């Protein structure tokens, strides 16, 4: 056994208050998560619908796949874009953990780039050649979704490896070639499944939303899509209750206890998240019986959003709990670059304004 090594904290001070970095990390991570869920869950739903359509002959399945095919590459562009800030802010606070774990699994980590590129071109192929591909469509979209599943798995590897410094040195002394995967980690599989299944469920929400948007113009398709989406939400979420419990009990004991009274933030958000998940399942189940499910569905969305946000807080508590013996955020030195921070926010607001303007022009012309 080797003594655990954690690299030093960078002597250059963090150029912003830690709470701001933390806030931006969580805020952008939530957005990234939603887009990622669309891309991964939506891709799998499209692939499964291709098969279901072929088996059942119900045209709605193909119709849904066709529409998803248009959204997937765009959603992937934004998933990538929205993934940049959380990774950036993560490096500011936890760089000494993150770079180290990345190096230890360097090749698998770097291969993320390759898999995303393959998935991306697959989605574009699926979109641009939808009609021509016909029979092979399942393989194209399924292949892309599969590559993204690998990416998710690799991310889970790194996100768990960065929290377990005790494993690092042993691996590194053995080989510096960076070919490691964190397969010995108890929480790896439950954690991965937890995120993966959530992606399917949120993919279902996207289908519901799309169905709602088409209520006026295509009432029949809309009705089908809403139902179909609800099931895509419900079935994964039922399994999630089992996976979630397994994930919870595989956590190191002291980390688990943080969510059961040990940390106030952890416990409160964990409770909100669990109750939100249960409530949303009930709401969506109820909505299946309604002729006009719209208000209930929106309530369900709202509850789920709260759940997701709470889960991101819980995740943060788990992360700090894992590494508390090596590092706490108050060890960071801070020297805010106030002027540049203001400039960032100004440009950010300006950027949103410009994108808003472009969207407005586009929707205007589509209506006209």
């Amino acid at each position, binding site marked *: 056994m080797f003594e655990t090594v954690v690299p030093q904290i960078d002597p250059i001070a963090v*150029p912003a208050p830690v709470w701001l970095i933390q806030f931006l990390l969580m805020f952008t991570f939530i957005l990234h998560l939603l887009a990622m869920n669309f891309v991964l869950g939506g891709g799998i739903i499209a692939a499964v619908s291709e098969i279901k359509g072929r088996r059942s002959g119900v045209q709605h399945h193909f119709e849904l796949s066709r529409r998803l095919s248009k959204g997937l590459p765009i959603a992937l562009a934004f998933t990538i874009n929205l993934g940049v800030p959380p990774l950036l802010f993560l490096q500011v606070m936890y760089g*000494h953990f993150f*770079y180290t774990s990345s190096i230890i699994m360097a090749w698998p980590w770097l291969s993320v780039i390759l898999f995303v590129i393959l998935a991306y071109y697959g989605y574009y192929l699926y979109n641009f050649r939808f009609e021509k591909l016909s029979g092979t469509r399942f393989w194209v979209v399924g292949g892309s979704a599969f590559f993204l599943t690998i990416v998710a798995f690799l991310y889970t590897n790194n996100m768990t490896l960065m929290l377990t410094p005790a494993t690092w040195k042993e691996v590194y*002394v053995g080989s510096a070639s960076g070919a490691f995967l964190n397969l010995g980690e108890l929480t790896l599989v439950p954690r991965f499944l937890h995120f993966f299944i959530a992606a399917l469920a949120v993919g279902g929400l996207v289908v519901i939303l799309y169905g709602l948007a088409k209520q006026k113009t295509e009432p029949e398709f809309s009705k089908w899509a809403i139902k179909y989406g609800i099931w895509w939400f419900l079935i994964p979420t039922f399994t999630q209750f089992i996976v979630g419990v397994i994930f919870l009990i595989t956590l190191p004991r002291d980390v688990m206890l943080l969510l059961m009274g040990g940390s106030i933030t952890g416990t409160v958000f964990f409770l909100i998240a669990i109750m939100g998940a249960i409530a949303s399942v009930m709401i969506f189940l109820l909505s299946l019986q309604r002729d006009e499910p719209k208000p209930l569905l929106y309530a369900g969305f709202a509850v789920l959003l709260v759940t997701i946000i709470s889960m991101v807080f819980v995740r943060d508590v788990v992360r700090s709990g894992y590494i508390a013996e090596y590092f706490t955020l108050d060890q960071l030195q801070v020297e805010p670059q106030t002027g540049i921070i203001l*400039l*960032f926010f100004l*440009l950010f607001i300006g950027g949103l304004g410009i994108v808003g303007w*472009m969207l407005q022009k586009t929707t205007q012309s589509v209506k006209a």
Partner: protein
Amino acid sequence: MLNFPVWEIPHLGGGMLIAIVATIHVFIAHFAIGGGLFLVMTERKAYKENDDRILDYVQRHSRFFLLLTLVLGAMTGVGIWFTIGLVSPAATSSLINIFVWGWAIEWVFFFVEIAAIIIYFYTWRKLQPKTHLAIGWIYFIAAWMSLFVINGIVAFMLTPGAWVETRSFIDGFFNPTYWPALVSRTLVCFALAGIYAILTASVFKDRELRGKMVRYAARWSLPSLFLLPLSLYWYYAALPDVAREILTGGLPFIYDTAVLSVVAGGTLFLLVLIAAWLFPARVPVAYSILLLLVGFTVMFSAERVREAIRKPYVLYDYMYTHSVLKGEQENLREEGILNAWGWGKYNEVTDETMIRAGKDVFRAQCMACHTIGGYNDVLKLTEDYTVDDIEIIVLELDQFRGYMPPFAGSFDEARAVAEYLTQIEEERSEELTTIRSGR
């Protein structure tokens, strides 16, 4: 020192891996900027001349543009970020702590950029020409602004300027090579826009249109390529003395690479000129691919040189290539690198641990630049030296060939690397003899 583990990359070494990923990225990313202006200007030309064929052409070109820049451009950008984090984690960490708000601002432009290009692409012939053009402009401006930001961070690594004393964001950002690098890169953007446009024009069946568009595209590349040497000279003049020395022959293979870059640049100019002048309507696809390959060679050698002239630093005047901070080496000579680094199997050099400790010292102090048996092969460099020679070289590392940083370890550790290198050298030659005698 920032004691991260060092990733061992067989054959290539970290510097080469960075150069490969970076060139692929830069080759697409510069096109993503210049090509953006090319899209709007050409679309405008189509409206002005009321020529639907040109509009058709831009529309098709924009699909190629989207598939290349949005997918490969963006992902290799993330790729280069991943790669520098793996190869130079300490430098990446410091860069991020200095410039995280620069990156955050660049991300805003990236966000506007992809929103704009997606809308631009999906609204062809659906929007008012004026609005569609405006969206194209937004794309181009956002894309160029992201260069404006990232250029500051990239140039900083080689010429941090007053930052070393003041530690101020602005001093580091608008550093001595900022402006010449920005002008050079902008010229490269326009040169590449023309070359990619020749590629998409060369697939045209309509000979007359092909000729017209090739000539038009050449007008983007030629002036930029012509002006590029001037701005590069300006850049050269702003470099630190040691960097200029490396470039002009201090390291022969870097000098050769620089010459290659210049020669390839001149060739590219001539090839575009000849095509546009002599056979614009008959430019074959293969020829335009050749142009791209020559262009790639220019960029690859230029990026390689830019990385290499930073020796012996990774962040100039602040952090050495082996992640030791400038001035820290004195203490490390006392403390020992193995102690400070922490990733070796042993922290002390004894007779028993000698070879393994030498291996770990090599990882910590040399592997940032040398491989064993690959690029900048240390075995080849030490072929003719005895253990004692190597030990002396290591202790006086910064006095020898190669613009190496000072060795930041104890006397015992210097001995250990020397023993280690000699031992693998011997194993190597034994292997060779057995192979030879076996034949």
